């Protein structure tokens, strides 16, 4: 079971044509108190600039940023459980629970 790739695909279509394919995101623990998430699309398209949000269980945004030019995003691990949200346009959101992130 690939928990890290669990996708929550909402209704509707992607509003940006270049993102008109299945979004993909995976995160891993770097072992140095940081986590790196890598993004992409099923057609090999870049994830550069895609919004990233790290939220707690109440939905409060703890950290936010965007995918780099190399389609990755690294952040310091928050103290408590959190979720990573990869916002690849309307209807294409992936959420990853911190408990599913491994080294």
């Amino acid at each position: 079971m690939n928990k890290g790739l669990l996708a929550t695909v909402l209704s509707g279509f992607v509003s940006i044509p270049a993102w008109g394919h299945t979004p993909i995101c995976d995160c891993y623990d770097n072992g140095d108190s940081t986590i790196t998430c890598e993004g992409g699309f099923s057609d090999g398209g870049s994830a550069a600039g895609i919004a990233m949000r790290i939220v707690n269980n109440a939905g409060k945004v703890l950290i936010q940023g965007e995918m780099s030019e190399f389609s990755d995003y690294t952040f310091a691990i928050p103290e408590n459980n959190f979720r990573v949200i990869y916002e690849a346009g309307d209807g294409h959101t992936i959420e990853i629970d911190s408990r599913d992130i491994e080294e």
Partner: protein
Amino acid sequence: MKNSLKAFQLLPALIISAGLLSNVAQAHFQLLYTPESALNEAQAIDIALVFSHPFHNGYPMSMGTPQEFYVIQDRGEGIPTKTTDLREYLKPVTWKNSDQASADAFVANLPKSVTRSIGDYSFVLVPEPYYEAAEDKYIQQYTRAMINVGGAPGSWDAPIGLPVEIIPLDKPYANWVGGVFRAVVVSNGEPVPNAEIEIEYLNHDPLIDQAIFDPIGKIEAPQGSFTTMSVRANDRGEITIGLPKEGWWGICALDLDNAETFNDKDLSVDAVLWVRAYAP
């Protein structure tokens, strides 16, 4: 009576000859085997490097130490590819088939860190040339096997810079049984019209931890012509093969060099690509 005796004596010779002829029909294939080509997430993987005949219980032939063994990681658009030398992971093994024929081969136990990222991974092996006594020549097979992690593709349809290549027109790691696989055969970057191609099904799964081939084959050929399938590329160097059975299919483009030699003997420079089919 004399004639009958001669015929009786001749029979074993004919049987042996038939056996030899059957062996001729087997093609040499450089295996670069790992069980799965489409991984949902990063994991440690084992790879077997065996020079063999994949359809017939893989009668192995001894390999020298590989000249090159590396992986190219490709995460997709705008992201530089990353090449990792894997020779540090090579472990020499004695590989056997069920007839107890044995040969020098290699196994690589790759840690999870090698395939940590999502994307395509092209494993490349450049073996030492193999001396084929029956033909008094050397064979060197530039071999590529691809896997993917997480479903994010890289530039799987691009050349990777080998002198001879089978460049995919379909993803080698994601094919349904019943589909077809297409590719272009190139030598020094140029398509090879009418290239001679051999195709074999990996009929006996390598059991990597035991360094043997599974003695039980998955299919039976109705006749020798079906063990090594022979096809020709078209005038643009393109090939199309069917994938009727789940597992790995080896494609070998033969003798793509320009009369190269090794140790003063002919050197057949071949390109091998492995394609994985999954049952629906």
